[in-house]
């Protein structure tokens, strides 16, 4: 004899989704009929509140017109994937990964007590490249549940005090210097095809330790345990205005949509484009007793570094002045070079598309020169010809 229907089955009955055998039971069982009536009464308010989701034939963008817009976006994406290739691979990809690592580090501040007194913790004076496995980071930035939860965590934790505007074109290095508030340098004898200035930004980050630990757990890294005392620690970050100077035929920054993999198209379209970016060091203020070394170790281990290597690296880095730049472990090589009177780092990707990026810091300004191809010597020559 069949037992009474479950609540889920009664719900299915109300939705016309009950299987025939169960439906037969319902038709003959007064107990289940009474419960169905009770459930219908309880559900009626929810049904009423959500009724506006019910499909109706109101006007909206026609599918054909939407497809045309979508196709245009894809076309632009192919045209401007240079933006992604250049800004996302050597700068933003590395830079985003660096920022992400920074965020990971900063998101997990090891404050034993929030004193309220803030220490000027971080200002870039040097760059150090760290080969890492990007799997952990890509999990966080992907479309999966983990990526979504990471976005939620950042969204809930970050208070944007000043958002950067769209890049503004400048006619000369003098105008760019005036807009950006620092002396913009251009290699001697070279004429830029574009100069763009992005205004400054500022945000603060307040950590919810429970959510951050849940994220690590969800990522399968419950071995990385955040101290209970991190909860509520506040970190403020100021990012000064930055300047991007393009040489050759380059795409306009900020005009591309989300990227895809059409590098071959862009390599053909922008074979001579090289971009020099310059930005005064971002500064980070955080509680004075921030245990950044321990937090950096967690961040590095999260990216796939062994505990031993992470401990070894973190013990040698000056965390108050070093910007860690993660690069793909098996898809890029790097070397130290002498440029602009200081020591810089030259990165050459060895993946599907050849890319180079040169990074160095001088007088508090972070410089990068990046481009497609393998002619990284050009970046070194440009850096050495800066006035």
């Amino acid at each position, binding site marked *: 004899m069949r037992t009474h229907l*479950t*609540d*889920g*089955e*009664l*719900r*299915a009955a109300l*939705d016309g*989704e009950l299987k025939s055998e169960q439906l037969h039971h319902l038709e003959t069982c007064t107990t289940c009929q009474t419960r169905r009536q009770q*459930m219908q009464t*309880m*559900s009626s*308010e*929810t*049904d009423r*509140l*959500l*009724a*506006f*989701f*019910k*499909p*109706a034939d*109101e006007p*909206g*963008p026609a*599918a*054909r017109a*939407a*497809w045309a*817009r*979508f196709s245009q*976006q*894809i076309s632009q994406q192919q045209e401007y994937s240079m933006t992604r290739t250049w800004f996302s691979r050597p700068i933003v990809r590395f830079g985003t990964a660096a920022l992400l690592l920074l965020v990971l580090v900063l998101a997990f501040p090891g404050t034993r007590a929030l004193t309220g007194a803030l220490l000027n913790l971080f200002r870039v004076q040097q760059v150090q490249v760290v080969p890492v496995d990007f799997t952990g980071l890509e999990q966080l930035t992907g*479309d999966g*549940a983990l990526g*979504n939860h990471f*976005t*939620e965590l950042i*969204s809930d934790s970050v208070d944007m005090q000043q958002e950067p505007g769209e890049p503004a074109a400048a006619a000369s290095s003098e105008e760019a210097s005036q807009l950006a508030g620092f002396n913009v340098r251009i290699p001697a004898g070279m004429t830029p095809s574009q100069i763009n200035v992005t205004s400054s930004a500022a945000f603060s980050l307040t950590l919810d330790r429970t959510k951050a630990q849940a994220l690590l757990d969800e990522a399968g890294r419950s071995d990385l345990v955040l101290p209970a005392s991190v909860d509520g620690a506040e970190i403020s970050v100021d990012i000064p205005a930055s300047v991007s100077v393009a040489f050759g035929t380059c795409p306009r920054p900020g005009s591309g*949509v*989300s990227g*895809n*993999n059409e590098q071959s198209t862009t390599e053909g379209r922008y074979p001579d484009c090289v971009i020099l970016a310059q930005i005064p060091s971002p500064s980070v203020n955080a509680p004075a007793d921030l245990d950044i070394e321990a937090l950096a170790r967690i961040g590095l281990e999260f990216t796939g570094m062994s505990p031993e290597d992470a401990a070894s690296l973190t013990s040698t880095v000056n965390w108050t002045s070093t910007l860690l730049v993660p690069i793909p472990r098996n898809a890029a090589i790097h070397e130290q070079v002498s440029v602009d009177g200081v020591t810089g780092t030259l990165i050459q990707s060895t993946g599907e598309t050849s890319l180079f990026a040169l990074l160095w810091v001088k007088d508090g300004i972070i410089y990068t020169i990046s481009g497609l191809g393998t002619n990284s010597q050009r970046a070194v020559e440009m850096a050495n010809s800066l006035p």
Partner: protein
Amino acid sequence: MKKHKTEITETARTESGSWGFEALFLEHWTSVYRILQRLVGDPEEAEDLALEAFLRLYRNNQKQPEVQNAGGWLYQVATRLGLNSIRDWKRREQYELTAGRFALEETAQLSPADILAQEEEHQQVRLVLARMNERQSQLLILRHSGFSYKEIASALNLAPASIGPLLVRAEREFGKKYRALVQEE
């Protein structure tokens, strides 16, 4: 009941022999857009989010051409984008205004006071959905958008038999959070 996903996706696949993305887009566009329009309340935002959902599917397909259940993936991502949009307080302030104006334009047969009251209630519903467990919100959104249990199961990678019990729990949670929100205000 309109077809939503899986069957249509298979049609799109077979028409091109590999991946008839245009066919898939045209089949799903209206449904994806309308769900997002109701979810975020702002037609322009809904259009942008719908395009973003398709764009992500397009990119995902480039990385993983053999992805199964592309239609289901699309609705899952679209509803997630919509819920994220609601969670973004800056956008929310904007679309609360826009949605109010849009409601006034679209519902001319009601009095302005009734329209505003109705739209306020819709905004509360959206806020509650954004505060709920994401899976539960997606269940409610898809169910009340006319999806069958089989279609919901396909979109959310769930067993069809689990949809009824999960809907019961989601409705209870929704009711609890909605009452709490109304009391807050």
